[in-house]
């Protein structure tokens, strides 16, 4: 049952999808991997929407060069762990939810533990090495994963439902090359992060058509958003017959 406080706080969205959907949000546990350009807007909007437990995983500390896009961190946070900096803002935004900050870089060893118990995983990471690990963890635990990535004015997002939709390796069997410094304007992860948060809310509340088997592509220069169809690959190395 929702409290009077909750009924008031979430009134505008309860008007949209009802009290039961709001209860589902309150009972959900979402693990966001990455507290940077994507992780900040994802976490902020999921906290505001009343997700019961938001877990942040990131091993980095805040750097001055992060501040053009990582909007939960401020000048004063430089040198602090990103997860601590972000968690403080989220608790201030919504004191009724649980925010768990885990300072760790996701790797093959700790991935299953860090993602354990999640109803939903959000890929807010900045490289494909970690993304492939996260994809395999999601497939193994059969937990949906919402992918997002950005560069410059360009971004992409998709939702992966293990066993039902194309997985990350079906869509991207070969990782794009690593860059030391990835140019980006803050609005790009803002837009893609909110697409991811929107999918999370839709998935948990059972609203609308999910961004599954479609890759959403944002072109900020042209101000256009397109979706490209994607599909499961039978020989996928992560979810198909090519599994290893």
């Amino acid at each position: 049952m929702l409290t009077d406080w909750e009924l008031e706080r979430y009134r505008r969205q309860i008007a949209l999808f009802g009290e039961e959907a709001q209860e589902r949000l309150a009972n959900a546990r979402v693990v966001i991997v990455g507290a940077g350009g994507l992780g900040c807007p994802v976490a902020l909007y999921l906290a505001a929407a009343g997700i019961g437990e938001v877990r942040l995983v990131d091993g980095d500390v805040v750097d001055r060069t992060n501040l053009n896009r990582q909007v939960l961190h401020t000048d004063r946070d430089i040198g602090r762990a990103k997860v601590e900096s972000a968690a403080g803002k989220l608790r201030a935004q919504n004191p009724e939810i649980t925010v768990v900050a885990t300072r760790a870089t996701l790797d093959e060893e700790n991935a299953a533990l860090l993602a354990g118990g999640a109803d939903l995983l959000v890929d807010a990471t900045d490289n494909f090495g970690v993304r492939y690990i996260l994809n395999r963890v999601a497939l193994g635990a059969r937990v949906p994963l919402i992918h997002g990535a950005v560069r410059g004015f360009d971004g992409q997002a998709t939702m992966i439902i293990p066993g039902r939709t194309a997985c990350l390796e079906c869509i991207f069997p070969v990782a794009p090359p690593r860059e030391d410094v990835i140019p980006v304007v803050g609005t790009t992860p803002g837009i893609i992060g909110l697409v991811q948060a929107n999918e999370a809310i839709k998935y948990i509340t059972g609203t609308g058509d999910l961004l599954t088997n479609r890759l959403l592509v944002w072109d900020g220069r042209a101000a256009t958003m397109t979706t490209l169809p994607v599909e499961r690959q039978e020989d996928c190395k992560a979810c198909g017959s090519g599994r290893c």
Partner: protein
Amino acid sequence: MQVRVRAFARLREAIGGDLTLEVPEGATMSRLLAAVGETSEQAGEALFEESGEIRGYVILMHNGRRVRRAEAGTLTLADGDEVALFPPVAGG
């Protein structure tokens, strides 16, 4: 015959937008990709490795369907087809 090319992300910057290319009747996907690469130095770099092979991470689509790299040499195009080329981004 004419084939429409929709390019995304860095490739779009390199090409400057969508393209309609004139290619010989019965041209393959590989032939079209070579023609796209020839439109500018940046387009060539965005699409091809130094070895001349198509960059493995670029997503190739033909009339809304994914095309594997291995199929590019044999897939023949028809007049009015649409090819989409998407080099994924990786930052966060």
